[in-house]
């Protein structure tokens, strides 16, 4: 996939530049001539959507930082200042808060896509692991950002999440004091969270660079899960084919984004966060943002503090081991009927855990959460290894072209008849 660029600049200035710094050649070989499998469906447009969301979050975030004051006494009122006084401040802030929601929605779609089509399998293990790292950085960045408005839910969230580390034996408490810069979440905590919230997105940009680089070395997976054998028959050029498809998908995505911003801008925000942080009282019902709810449900399902925290982190870390848990040589769930069934069970489990995480923990619901937690880990630790060797898969096509072209020929024949 990668190799010396075939790009030849048309202008003299372009040739002068290219012989000194082959930047345009890199862009050309990565985003113009780059061969993509010809059978990609719309699930493969989320990489572009995610790139857009990352840029959108950085641009709106930099703008918000021009008006926001990271101080325990002024942060809350500076948010109101942004909403009421700053020109278009309300728009930029709603773009940023709802942007986080759509960023995670796209990210989860992208991850489920990878699990469904086996995109984590050889030779794309590193590509997948870098993706898990990016997801973890995203969750950390979102958490830090949620603390900044300094509402009562911000404060409770900061307290609960930083206290996860107090479960570490012996040094846990010292680590929390170090994180807080005090004996409780307070002004120093808010200040450093702002600093880190500004830093992490740029580390994500770096990780995304590695992610795309690794992708362009191995080439994309595809809905049939067979590797490219003949670039001429199996692939098309990134531009215009993938570019136009990405632009169309992104346009649809932007309609959803605009609908969130202009019609239900506060839908994902918690009403409790309209109260200023109070260190002496916790809101009656502490819940994280929707995108962290399943992990919160797993934390609550386990009655022991340390084990709960370990399960929480394990539920994310386990994703990095997928390439070695699923040993089936067939990548795509399209040819794995049993795996496909369990994949959808897994999706339902994740949504179920998310719903449970949003509810008050009654005894009955906690019991259900325990069942679903077992199901969550069971999918990775039991179903995946077991199906690797026992599942009877359907025959896979000999090549990407064989998977799609005969159908097209039949359709043409049918149309002519």
């Amino acid at each position, binding site marked *: 996939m990668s190799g010396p660029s075939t790009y030849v600049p048309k202008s003299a200035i372009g040739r002068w530049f290219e012989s000194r710094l082959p930047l345009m050649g890199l862009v050309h070989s990565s985003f113009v001539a780059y061969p993509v499998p010809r059978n990609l469906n719309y699930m493969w447009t989320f990489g572009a959507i995610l790139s857009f969301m990352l840029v959108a979050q950085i641009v709106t975030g930099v703008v918000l930082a021009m008006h926001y004051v990271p101080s325990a006494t002024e942060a809350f009122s500076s948010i109101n200042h942004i909403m009421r006084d700053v020109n278009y401040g309300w728009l930029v802030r709603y773009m940023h808060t709802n942007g986080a929601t759509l960023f995670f929605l796209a990210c989860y779609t992208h991850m489920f896509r990878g699990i469904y089509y086996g995109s984590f399998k050889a030779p794309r293990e590193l590509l997948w692991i870098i993706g898990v790292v990016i997801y973890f950085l995203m969750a950390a960045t979102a958490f830090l950002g949620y603390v900044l408005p300094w509402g009562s839910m911000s404060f409770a969230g900061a307290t609960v999440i930083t206290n996860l580390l107090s479960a570490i034996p012996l040094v846990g408490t010292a680590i929390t004091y170090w994180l807080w810069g005090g004996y409780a979440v307070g002004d*120093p905590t808010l200040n450093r969270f702002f600093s880190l919230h500004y830093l992490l997105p740029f580390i994500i940009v770096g990780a995304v660079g590695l992610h795309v680089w690794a992708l362009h070395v191995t080439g994309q997976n595809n809905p049939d899960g067979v590797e490219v054998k003949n670039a001429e028959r199996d692939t098309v050029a990134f531009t215009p084919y993938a570019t136009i498809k990405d632009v169309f998908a992104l346009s649809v995505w932007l309609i959803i984004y605009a609908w969130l911003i202009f019609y239900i801008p506060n839908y994902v925000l918690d009403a409790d966060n309209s109260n200023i942080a109070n260190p*002496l009282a916790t809101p*009656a019902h502490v819940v994280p943002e929707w995108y962290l709810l399943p992990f919160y449900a797993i934390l609550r399902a386990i009655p022991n503090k340390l084990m709960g925290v370990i399960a929480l982190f394990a539920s994310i870390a386990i994703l990095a081991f997928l390439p070695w848990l699923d040993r089936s040589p067939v990548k795509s769930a399209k040819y794995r009927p049993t795996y496909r069934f369990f994949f959808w069970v897994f999706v339902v489990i994740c949504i179920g855990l998310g719903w449970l995480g949003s509810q008050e923990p009654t005894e009955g619901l906690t019991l259900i959460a325990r069942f679903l937690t077992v199901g969550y880990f069971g999918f990775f630790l039991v179903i995946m290894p077991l199906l690797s060797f026992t599942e009877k898969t359907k025959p896979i096509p000999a090549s990407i072209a064989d998977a799609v072209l005969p159908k097209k020929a039949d359709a043409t024949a049918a149309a002519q008849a």
Partner: protein
Amino acid sequence: MASAATVEAPNRRDFLFLTAGAVGAVGVAAVVWPLVDQMNPDASTLALASTEVDIGAIPEGQIVTVKWRGGPVFIRHRTKKEIEDAENVPLGELRDPQTDQSRVKKREWLIVIGVCTHLGCVPLGQEGKYEGWLCPCHGSIYDTSGRIRQGPAPLNLAVPEYAFLTDTRVKIG
């Protein structure tokens, strides 16, 4: 074993290389430590290490929350029943066994840090099965001695360092 015969004895250059490396490592550590330690509680935070409270106005049965080191401390003027409930619990029933006597200086005054030992939320007073405290976050239940009885929290509500300056004045910290 031809290679064993050709191994040279450590010379002056090896010695300089190792010592220079060691000094370099110490230098790196000396630069990294300030960057790490700056995040620890600073001098102004440490200076707020104690607070004095007038408890004369707290009627029996009431809990007052005061701020100490940025977080809540509960001062509970316990009723006779609450004291008896707390004292009559067999230690075997407790997750973090402590007698009520070891947690108070005067039987009617219970002073504990108002931070749930699970994940740091502030529990609600006079609630839960034992009418001690109930944590709204994950349902930990504490008794009238602030000891953990049910739920995910591992430890009793912590007792801060405090002293009665007079009968109605307490210094916390």
